[in-house]
């Protein structure tokens, strides 16, 4: 195994170090140092994982769309864009799942309910399912180019779909006033340290996103290479068999 077959470089090692350091700092600030909220009490600490998680997921989905467009555009066509799109979507789905879970727990504590049919929440759930579907399409098989083409088109369709879903849920929601968020008024009054902790969370999660995507993108590349080499060796084996049989 030569050195270029691993997914880390000096850059990602350094980045990873800073990410872990940042997460440790975030845990200390978020759980121990920052004050409890006046209205929400201790439960406000969920925010430091929930908000950055949601931010990371949205960032990841935007990145998936951008790199899908880059793949489809002929001048920049490269499977690297496709792998970045795939890696980004995987990380996005993971963190969207995390922020949905933390969000509903937080909602239970502050609004008294796990879920409300608010447009933002509902759209987020749709995003989650849509990108699970996207990942399933990536796993359909076929050549790398087939996978790239299919999933890139799908990622761009999601860009069309999501605003439309959001808009229609909003329209639907205006008819169901009783269902809209009970906790609209419970906006968090933030003091400086809370705001700083939240800001730190967003920065750390963004760095973590870059770190994870770099690694995942490279491991996807290795997977593709493995598939190709498997095919090559199978071909040469068959050829060898054929020449032996010919003798």
């Amino acid at each position, binding site marked *: 195994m030569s050195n270029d077959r691993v997914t880390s470089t000096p850059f990602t090692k350094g980045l990873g170090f800073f990410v872990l350091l940042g997460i440790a700092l975030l845990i200390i600030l978020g759980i121990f140092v920052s004050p409890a909220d006046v209205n929400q009490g201790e439960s406000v600490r969920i925010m430091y994982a929930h908000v950055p998680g949601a931010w990371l997921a949205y960032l990841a989905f935007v990145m998936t769309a951008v790199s899908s467009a880059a793949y489809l555009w002929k001048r920049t066509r490269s499977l690297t864009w496709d792998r970045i799109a795939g890696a980004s979507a995987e990380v996005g789905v993971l963190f969207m799942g995390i922020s949905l879970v933390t969000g509903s727990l937080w909602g239970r504590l502050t609004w008294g309910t796990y879920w409300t049919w608010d447009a933002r929440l509902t759209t987020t759930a749709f995003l989650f399912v849509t990108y699970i579907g996207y990942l399933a*399409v990536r796993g359909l098989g076929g050549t790398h180019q087939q996978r790239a083409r*299919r999933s890139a088109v799908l990622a761009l369709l999601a860009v069309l779909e999501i605003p*439309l879903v959001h808009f229609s849920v909003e*329209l639907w929601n205006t008819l169901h006033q009783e269902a809209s968020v009970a906790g609209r008024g419970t906006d968090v009054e933030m003091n400086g340290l809370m705001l700083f902790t939240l800001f730190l969370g967003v920065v750390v999660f963004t760095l973590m996103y870059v770190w994870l995507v770099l690694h995942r993108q490279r491991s996807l590349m290795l997977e593709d290479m493995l598939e190709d080499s498997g095919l090559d060796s199978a071909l040469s084996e068959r050829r060898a068999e054929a020449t032996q049989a010919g003798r």
Partner: protein
Amino acid sequence: MSSAGQQRFTGTTVIGTARLIAAKDLRVELRSRVLLNQVLPFALIVMVMFAFALDSDAVLERVAPGLVWLAALFSALIMVSRSFAVETADGALDQLRSAGVPAMGIFIGKMMALMAQLVVLVTLLIIAAVVLYRAELSWAGSVLLVTTGLTATCGLAAVGTLYGGLAAGAKGRETLLPLLLLPVVAPVLIGATRATESAFGTRGVSTSQGWPWLGLLAVFAVLFSVSGAVAFGPLLDD
């Protein structure tokens, strides 16, 4: 493939192709009777099962519009699956493409055929709602309902053909398609259900309140027809 086949295929225009493909799909349907013998009975039994689950005339009357469109969506999934099973069974889609048939024509043709079948389905479901769930329909309501039905089925057909083509030929297509399609068609479910509610006069909603929802359905239909016609080519050829 002598002169007869070639003559009918002169020009390979998009519209000409679309007409041929649509006619072909509908002919396959008329001869195989899958819609008539399998999909429509399925849709009907779903409507009956809803009644078992909800178990109250008052509730059924209130939710009838939603049930009509929910049953329509589930049945549409089967239709889309079927529409592309026909196409990929013998590699027909690949052959169409390698024969130089325009992808946009294939898309429009399959979409038209699917829409025709969906119109039949939705008509049957609305009749079922009137008979089974006591939904009431006035003249003004009928006009709204027909317009809603046509716009919604157009959108469903477009998005169904697009995603059907996307998953066509892949293993595990039958299970993947619902996962891909259902989130996308949520706006149709919302728009069509609200418009149908006002056509039925459910919960005292007046007919005039239904028309604005058609805007949503129309935007959906246009958006996915256009993007489908554009994206279908790149999806098919590899």
